[in-house]
Every structure is written in structure tokens, then in C-alpha cells.
């Protein structure tokens, strides 16, 4: 099993503490979602599901690709904005 944390550890971020730029609109909806694609496809592993089928989101490692919002099209349950100016991922090489 690959540890995504190890990959993200190399990256430079400026985290906007307490102001996540992505939010799950309704937690209940995620519990009922069959696919939970976000927990598989997020390249930074920001979405995790727990034993009770709840989805948790921690945006600190977000690479701002936009994938989660697109694949959540059936439920449209993700509110996605860019981080405030200057915050978020800061690619050194890109």
C-alpha cells in the first residue's frame, strides 16, 4: 500500500488554517453515496471514508486539481472554491 502522505510530504503548502476551500455540503448524502469516488480518485487522498460509511475531508494536502467536484456530479455535494490568494499548494517545479 502506497502512503500518499509520503508523497505529499515533499510538497510545499501554505495552509489557510481554519478556512478550508472545499466543503462537503451535506454529510448525510455521502453516507448514502454508493461509489464514494472522491475517496478513491482524489490524487492527494484528502477524502477518507470511515467504518460507518461517513466521508471526511481534510483539505491541507489538496493539489487543487478540481477532480472531486467533477466526479461528484450525481450528488453535487462538494462546494469547491480556490483557496484565498497566496494559500494552498505552492509548486516548486510544477
Amino acid at each position, binding site marked *: 500500500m*502506497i502512503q*500518499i502522505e509520503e*508523497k*505529499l510530504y*515533499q*510538497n510545499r503548502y*501554505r495552509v489557510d488554517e481554519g478556512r478550508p476551500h472545499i466543503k462537503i455540503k451535506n454529510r448525510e448524502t455521502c453516507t448514502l453515496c454508493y*461509489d464514494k*469516488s472522491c475517496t*478513491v*480518485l482524489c*490524487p*492527494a*487522498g484528502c477524502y477518507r471514508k470511515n467504518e460507518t460509511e461517513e466521508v471526511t475531508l481534510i483539505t491541507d494536502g489538496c*493539489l*487543487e*486539481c*478540481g*477532480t472531486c467536484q*467533477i*466526479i461528484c*456530479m450525481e450528488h453535487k455535494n462538494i462546494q469547491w*472554491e*480556490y*483557496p*484565498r*490568494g*497566496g494559500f*494552498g*499548494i*505552492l*509548486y*516548486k*517545479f*510544477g
Partner: protein
Amino acid sequence: MKEKYDCIIVGAGPGGTAAAYTLASNGLNVIQLERGEYPGSKNVQGAVLYANSLEKIIPDFRMDAPLERFLAEQRVWIIDKDAYVGTTHRTAALNWDNADRYTILRAPFDRWFSKKAQEAGVLLICETTVLDLIKEKERVVGVRTDREDGELYGEVVILADGVNSMLARKAGFRKEIVAKEVALGVKETIFIPQEILENRFGLVDNQGVAIEMLGAITRGMLGTAFLYTNKESISIGIGCLLADLKKEKIPPFELLESLKNHPAVKPLIVGGEVKEYSAHLIPEGGYHAMPQIYGEGWMIVGDAAMLVNSIHREGSNLAMESGRLAAETVIEIKKKNARFNKMNLVLYKEKLEKSFVLKDLRKYKNFHAVIGKNRHFLTTYPEIMNVSLFSLLQVDGVDKRTKERETIKNILKKRSVSGILQDAIQLWRATR
């Protein structure tokens, strides 16, 4: 009364900066907004830079642009589980000064390009996210940023805010992105001492190699992988259609790990140190997915306009070309003292139609649909090629005629003669 700019540009990637540079060099009053700490800090690409579109803007860019290597060698690998069949083209006719393509790292490159634009007179404001377009009736008259008193007004706004273009979506210029029109690419930048890297790939005098890969590595999904040599690092990545990833439920970094562990790839990156992991969406919908790209007081360039030729792995050059053409449109309209309305800005679309940008996108407009419906192009053929060659090349006491007969029989087991013919015709049509 707030200052009014001739043009507001959202985003400091290749498209936005090409537009900004062109406008400022022609004496226009340009403000450019970038949400990253510096231009390039949000941007990801393979990356191969094609010189032509940049050369039209900065002819002597080779003098000081942070280019990594010029591509002296290009390989295409058709990959099976533990083998590959490949083509290589290497030439000594190219050198640093005349090459048409270079590997780059986008963060330093975008920063350099933007510095050139600032020297030409562009006012660049970083760490500023544009939240909305300001409209008067249907007309875009400015932008609202996340800064205090952050409203800016301009005669025309160029959206160069990348593949996700929140602005175009919010304003209704573009429909929501669908998973079958974008690919998700993940990439690592792996550092290797320059001498080892040059020995490993047989490189001298800033020569570089690009390897494009397709086949088993994408597990039947529509996608490709790449490996590019930089000065003292390797860029390695893999991208698949998002709709396919969703269907197959494969984490993208797992694909990247498999790629790195493929026996053909592993020895090339061994001993390297991963210094960055990145991800980005690539607009792959092509011509059919292109939104309306101009309107009352606005134009869209680059990825935000879905201008990517994924067949030829071209994107940032299309961004630069479209950025420059959008700027030239502004300059021409300004000269005539005309309005930046939809009727006049159609000129931008006309210019794009005449350029390689839309000519190429139109040429391949059905390619994805054809491959999408014929996944065996990505599974059966790579397997056939690799298995056939393996058996043909083995010297094992079986005579050649029998070998040939066996190979053909095995191929036809996988795909019939009529099937192969059909495939050939389909592929030919899809690229005409």
C-alpha cells in the same frame, strides 16, 4: 473613481502571460492577477515546451529562459505487462539554438515568462484570487478579487484561469466540466545527479529525451504516460480520462507507482530522489468540448477554453498562441476605437480558426470518441505486438516459417482480419 485598465487578465500561466506581454509591448495598460504566490506556483505540465508559439512573442527566449534540455530524442513505447515495443527518433541536426522543443519545469518557466511581461509594462498582482466577474447587464466590465476594495475595472477581460476556470463556469460562459472531457494527470519530479542522468540516457550538450508510453500501464483506460529528462531531474507522470478512472476505481497515485515499477521504467529512475508530487486536470474534450470563447467584454484563452491537442501532447503552446491572438484582437479593436462587444470580439475566434490551434483541434475532433469506443486499441494491440515480437525474436529451435505461421495464428485469435482492417480504417478516419 477607480482606475480603469485597458485589459484585465486573470491568470499568469502561458496563455495569460502571452496576452499580457503582447498587450503591454503595444503600449496598453494591463493588469494581470495571479492567485499563486508567484506565477507558476499553481501550474503543472509534463513538460515539453514548443518553441514556435513563444518565439513569435519573445524571439530570443533561448537567451535566458529557464529551459532544461532540448529534445534530441523522442521515443514512443507500446507497453505490455513486462515488455515494450518502441520507436526511437534521435537526431544530431538539432542543438540548443535551433531546437523546436525543450523540456521545462513550469514553476521557474512561468516565473521567467511573467518577469518578461512585467518588464514590458504589465502590472502583475500575485496572491489574489478573482472571485467573480463584474457585469453591467450582459457586459463584463471588471473583476472582484479577494482583496479589500478588490474591484478592478477594464475595457475587456481575458480569462486565462486554467482548466477549472471557475470564472467562466460561474458566469455561465462554460458548462460544468464532465468527467469524460478531462484527464487527471499525476506526476513526480525525481532528481538524479546530472552526470548519472546523462550517462543513463546517453546525453551530451543539453540533449534531452522524451518517452511517451501507452498500453498496459493505463489498464485499459484512455490515457498515456510520459518520462522527460530535465537538466538534473526526470519528470514522470501518467494521465487517464477521469470518467475511466471513476469507472475503474483506481487511485491515480497507484497508477503512478505501477508505472515507476514497470521493468522498462524502473532502471531509468532508480536512485532518484522524489522532490515533488503534483496533479492536474487536462482538458481533453477537444474541438467538440470547446466552450464559447468570447462575448460582451470577455475572451477565454488556453486551458480555460479547453484548447489542448492531447494527441500531440500540445497545450501550453496553444495557450500562448490563443493568448497572443486574443491580445492582437484587443489591439486591433482599440486602434479602431471600436467597442469590445461580442460582434467585434468574434475576430479572436476568426484568428484562432486560421491558426494551427483550431485547425489541429478540428483535425482530431473525433479521435477520442473512436478510441473511447474501441478500447482494444489500448489493450489488445499492445499485447499482440509485444507477445508476437517476443516469440519471433526467440531462437529456440523452431524454424522461422513455423514461427511466422504461429504468430499470425495467435494474432488472428486476438483480432480477426476484418477486425484489423476495420480498426485501420477507423483510425485513419479519426485522424483525417
